[in-house]
């Protein structure tokens, strides 16, 4: 009997091949403790943040926004803090890069929302970048805060009078949480100050060296 005649053998070998590849690419990472270590600063979601995460899931935000800063220099700059933001928050003018996303930041994510497509920008470090009012205005009418945006208006998250529903408030709470599982802003500024000792002798000095980086 030729090999092509053995249906049962085919099924067994096919399953064995599948097991082999799946074991190395799936089971081995699953048993890697470093991928499940939240680190010192990661905190589980609050009830409100979880409710907002559910809204994020239901509205399919994940299909246009990723939540992963790739390990590329250009991305750590694009999604980092620009001069305006560092001045507003820390009183110095500097470019603080956003660190690439790390496995520990995601340990409380079930399901994951890494995303694959950026019709809009990455949201992995968006928490704290804008205030709540900005987010609510942006959700209700994206073009009021971001002219030229092609994001749809999420009018159903607001009352007829334009007041945010509980879902909208929860969604904003979730967005503000994104990226806060590591203290990248504080640590980035501290590191910057360490490299620039003149900044430690207070009143904030306006550094002119850094080029403004767009959000």
């Amino acid at each position, binding site marked *: 009997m030729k090999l092509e005649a053995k249906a049962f053998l085919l099924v067994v070998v096919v399953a064995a091949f599948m097991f082999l590849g*799946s074991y190395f690419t799936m089971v081995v990472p699953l048993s890697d403790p470093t991928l499940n270590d939240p680190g010192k600063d990661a905190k589980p979601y609050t009830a409100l943040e979880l409710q907002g995460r559910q809204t994020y899931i239901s509205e399919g935000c994940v299909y246009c926004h990723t939540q992963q800063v790739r390990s590329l220099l250009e991305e750590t700059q694009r999604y980092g803090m620009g001069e305006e933001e560092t001045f507003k928050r820390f009183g110095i003018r500097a470019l603080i890069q956003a660190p690439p996303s790390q496995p520990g930041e*995601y340990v409380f994510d079930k399901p*994951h929302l890494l995303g694959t497509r950026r019709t809009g920008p990455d949201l992995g470090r968006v928490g704290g970048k804008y205030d709540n009012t900005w987010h609510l205005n942006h959700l209700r009418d994206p073009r009021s805060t971001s002219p030229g945006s092609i994001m749809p208006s999420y009018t159903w998250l607001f009352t007829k009078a334009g007041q945010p529903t509980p879902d909208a408030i929860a969604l904003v709470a979730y967005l503000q949480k994104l990226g806060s599982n590591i203290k990248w802003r504080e640590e980035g500024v501290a590191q910057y100050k360490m490299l620039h000792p003149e900044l430690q002798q207070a009143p904030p000095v306006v550094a002119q060296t850094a080029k403004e980086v767009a959000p």
Partner: protein
Amino acid sequence: MEQHVDKSARWFLYTAITFFLVTILIGLIMAIKFVAPEFLGGIAALGVGRIRVIHTNGVLFGWLLAADMGLCFYIVPRLAGVKLWSEKLGLATLGVWVVVLLGAVVTLAAGDTQAREYLELNVWLDILVTIAWVMFGLNIFMTIARRRHANMYASLWYIMGTLLWTAILWIVANLPVYSGVNDANVNWWFGHNAVGLIFTPVGLAIAYYFIPKSTGNPLYSHKLSLIGFWTIAFLYIWNGAHHIIFGPIPVWLQTVAILFSISLLIPVWTAVTNFYGTLRGKWASGNYVVKFFIAGTTFYLLTCFQGPMHSLRTVNMIVSKTDWIVGHAHMAVFGAFTFFAIGGIYFALPKILKTDLFSAKLAEWHFWLSFVGFLGFAISLWIGGFVQGLQWMDPTIAFLDTVKAMFPYYMVRMFSAILMVTAQVIFAYNIFKTVRGASARVQPAVA
């Protein structure tokens, strides 16, 4: 010669074509929303994040997998030389499948989703899909077990592989035990292989059957089809992580995925060599069925050249997360496997109905509008996506400006999508008239 009933095959194909029309239309609505964000705005169920899921799941499960299942019900009994094991079970499978599809539209429109790409359906629908797949697999395996000829043709191995791969992928990926980056890794273990180990092998099974049938040429090489099958079986499963290159997963995992991605050129080039070899001499003389297989084979070659190239880190950093990938994905699912399924339907349905196709001319129109429409769709997204990827590499360009720069490409994509939808309306009309004509013809004999 066995008298085939083909009732399951027929009704699966009718269902598939119906869902094709609906879900490709939703794709067009999305394309319009990319140039006019407030089009059909203010309705939660028509939000772009919700209809996107209906489009992808609808096209994959409602159209392509249903069409592939219908064509399996046609191919397997003929290659086995026996009747389908159970037409009743086949129709019952379709019943469960339709419940899944309608349930999917309702739940996804309501925002009831599990959020993992291509695994969005809720747990009840997941269970129904599993039940339907077991019913389908049992029917096919029992038919093969009762076959007349010991040796099996290439299409049968590919179909048996598909049955097994789909079941394992679906069940393992849907287990509710993963979280964090492992969940992403499992998601892409499934997502990559939903194309690689479900739509690819069953699509190749269809091409291996219908290309020799529609051209009258013998298969170019039996040995190549063997090499292709076993390399698919061994190589595809290692590739999931190439969707998360530069992402928060271990670097060794990314590198393994890249190495195996490049090796995928082997099964692809063996299959394409085999198809082109079988198609030789028929490029100019072939009818619409042959045209769909020539174009489908070519798109299969191109999309599977893009895939390994995307996995290279230097290319990946530019094209990943851009619309280039959307063009690439559509070339696999629409350009290659949908073209194969359409070619199979144009060949099989008239045979099932013992009649001629209503209009060969409309079928030619269907081909050319699909072909030109798809080229416009894909090329605009490739250029636009590449440009946007390069712009992202310059942090001084605001993200919003990179969105605005996509407008002309999104316009071309929208008009191309109109051509693609028009083509499928012609397809459905042609099939409808063929079925009507056939039933009108047999009615006097019945009465």
